[in-house]
């Protein structure tokens, strides 16, 4: 039997919402996986044509190139404010921000806390890879104690450089934030769990329940100086103990959500 005679069936393909171009992300980086999960969820919810994305500053600055949906590009840290402006005038649209840890947890902490506390009906996809990727791997608010980065060359020294910020835990204390969880991108199992969380976060918005955020522990092999496989192991061994996975806030309305 020749290959051509084998009956074929497509079981896996690129979601139509993702543009079929090569991304600028490094090999082994999980931004591409996170993009795909967002794309799959929006397709499954039939929300692609009703969605406006807000890209941020960092490695995901060009996210708008990879999704076939309307997009705007925020200044550093301000994506939640920009998304607020859009959502308030177009309340029937699905609006999400896609932000890294330097963007969201450092320069943009004011905007994310403001949006969450107001209960803005937004979905935030928060990529935590423990460093500033785009600018070459400097120390971020999420950098682990002792972690070597290009601006903590001898390792983050907490007595001088402070401690990492646990974003999901912090935001979960706000009444307006109704769904705040942390997931990881280091294994297929966790990626599947991440997708379910992303789906829930967008359903929260669609049902008008309030602010939702999914923090995703992500790899940065290039700046971590690791192979992709080592990077995944590093998430499991080093990041998860500092950033435990879990559901930090699931309001009763969200818990009852059926979709």
């Amino acid at each position, binding site marked *: 039997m020749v290959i051509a005679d084998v009956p074929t069936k497509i079981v896996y393909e690129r979601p139509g919402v993702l543009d079929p171009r090569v991304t600028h992300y490094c090999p082994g980086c999980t931004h591409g996986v996170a993009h795909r999960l967002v794309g799959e969820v929006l397709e499954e919810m039939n929300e*692609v*044509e*009703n*969605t*406006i994305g*807000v*890209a941020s500053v960092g490695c995901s*600055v060009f996210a*708008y190139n990879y999704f*076939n*949906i*309307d*997009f*705007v*590009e*925020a*200044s550093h840290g*301000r994506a939640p*404010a*920009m*998304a*607020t*402006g*859009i959502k*308030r*005038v*177009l309340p029937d*649209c*699905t609006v999400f921000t896609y932000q890294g840890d330097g963007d969201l947890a450092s320069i943009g902490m*004011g*905007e994310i*806390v*403001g949006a969450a*506390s*107001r209960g803005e009906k937004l979905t935030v996809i928060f990529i935590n890879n423990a460093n500033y990727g785009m600018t070459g791997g400097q120390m971020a608010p999420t950098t682990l104690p002792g972690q070597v980065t290009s601006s903590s060359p001898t390792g983050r020294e907490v007595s001088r450089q402070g401690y990492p910020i646990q974003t999901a835990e912090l935001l979960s204390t706000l009444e307006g934030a109704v769904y705040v969880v942390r997931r990881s991108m280091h294994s297929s199992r966790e990626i599947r769990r991440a997708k379910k969380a992303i789906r829930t976060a967008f359903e929260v918005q669609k049902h008008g329940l309030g602010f939702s955020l999914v923090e995703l522990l992500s790899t940065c092999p290039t700046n971590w100086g690791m192979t992709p496989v080592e990077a995944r192991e590093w998430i499991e061994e080093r990041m998860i103990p500092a950033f435990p996975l879990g559901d930090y806030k699931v309001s009763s309305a969200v818990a009852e959500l059926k979709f």
Partner: protein
Amino acid sequence: MAKEMIKGNTAVAEAAIRAGLQAYFGYPITPQTELLEHLSARMPELGRPFVQAESELGAINMVYGAACTGKRVMTSSSSPGVSLMMEGLSYIAGTEVPAVLVDVVRGGPGLGNIAPAQGDYNQIVHGGGHGDYHMIVLAPASVQEAIDLTVLSFDLAEKYRNIVAVLMDGSIGQMMEPAELPPMQPLNTETPDWAVRGTHGGEKRVLTSINLDPPAQEVMNLRLMKRWQAIEENEVRFKGYFLDDADYVVVGFGTAGRISLSAVHAARDKGIKVGLFRPITVAPFPKDVLDDLTQNVKAFLVVEMNSGQMLEDVRLVVRGRKPVEFYGRMGGVVPFPDEVLTEIERLVEEPLTTEGHPRDRWLSRLAATIG
């Protein structure tokens, strides 16, 4: 509609509503706060979005987001708050979306004080934010003019996809005087062909201010500059008083212009042939009209509530052909008409020069007065 006694800040807020304001995002700061307070009640009443942001950074970026949908949006603030908005204004300019900013200027620099001033002229007129862009800047001198220019600001912003700033000062924001509000306009329900809206079967739209390719960025810069040339061509506004036979011309905008008008009246009573030239668009600056005046007058007196920021724009037009003198008060001090009258009389009586810098002469006189 009949005139009513109305406070400047409230008048601007209500005028914006009647001009079809679809969303407001702001942050409290004196002497602008009544504007935000008025909208905090009126906007929800009308079912329109109002958000008191977490900061001026938040407010201007909410404006940025909403502006990307093509809605009529504005924010308002006062000097230190506007400084915080500069980043956002540059992004809005770089994305070519329309937005309106009201700056109720107070004394500075730094925290300064909450008294009326014009020290934001350079920040608003000559940039402030990074990169090559211009804002249209409208400078009212009364509550009525603030109302009228607020209405105009939305039309200009949309016509040119440009930021329009209404540059007031604390006295116009805070004072009450009789003014007439415009009729309520219906809201625009159309989505412009550039705005984000969710594709809904149409082409994907992306609004950004990023352009990593320098030649392509330069093309964008060129488009902005050509648009600015069109604005300079079409949108210059000013008011002239007693200019026909004037030997001397006082130049002042906003409250400084209004105070100067009182001084001009007093000088006319004394037989001095003096007029007032009051730019309403301080950007685009009314260069051509001022250039024409330069041919016919003996000297200019620029009056501002700052250290001579518009003075430099006047000097660029006059180019040393006629003497230019300057009188300013700073830090939230508002000049009395008498002070300006004294300066007009000095212009007539004392020998004038085109040498040196008028600011230096003014500073030495001011130092003698205020130590």
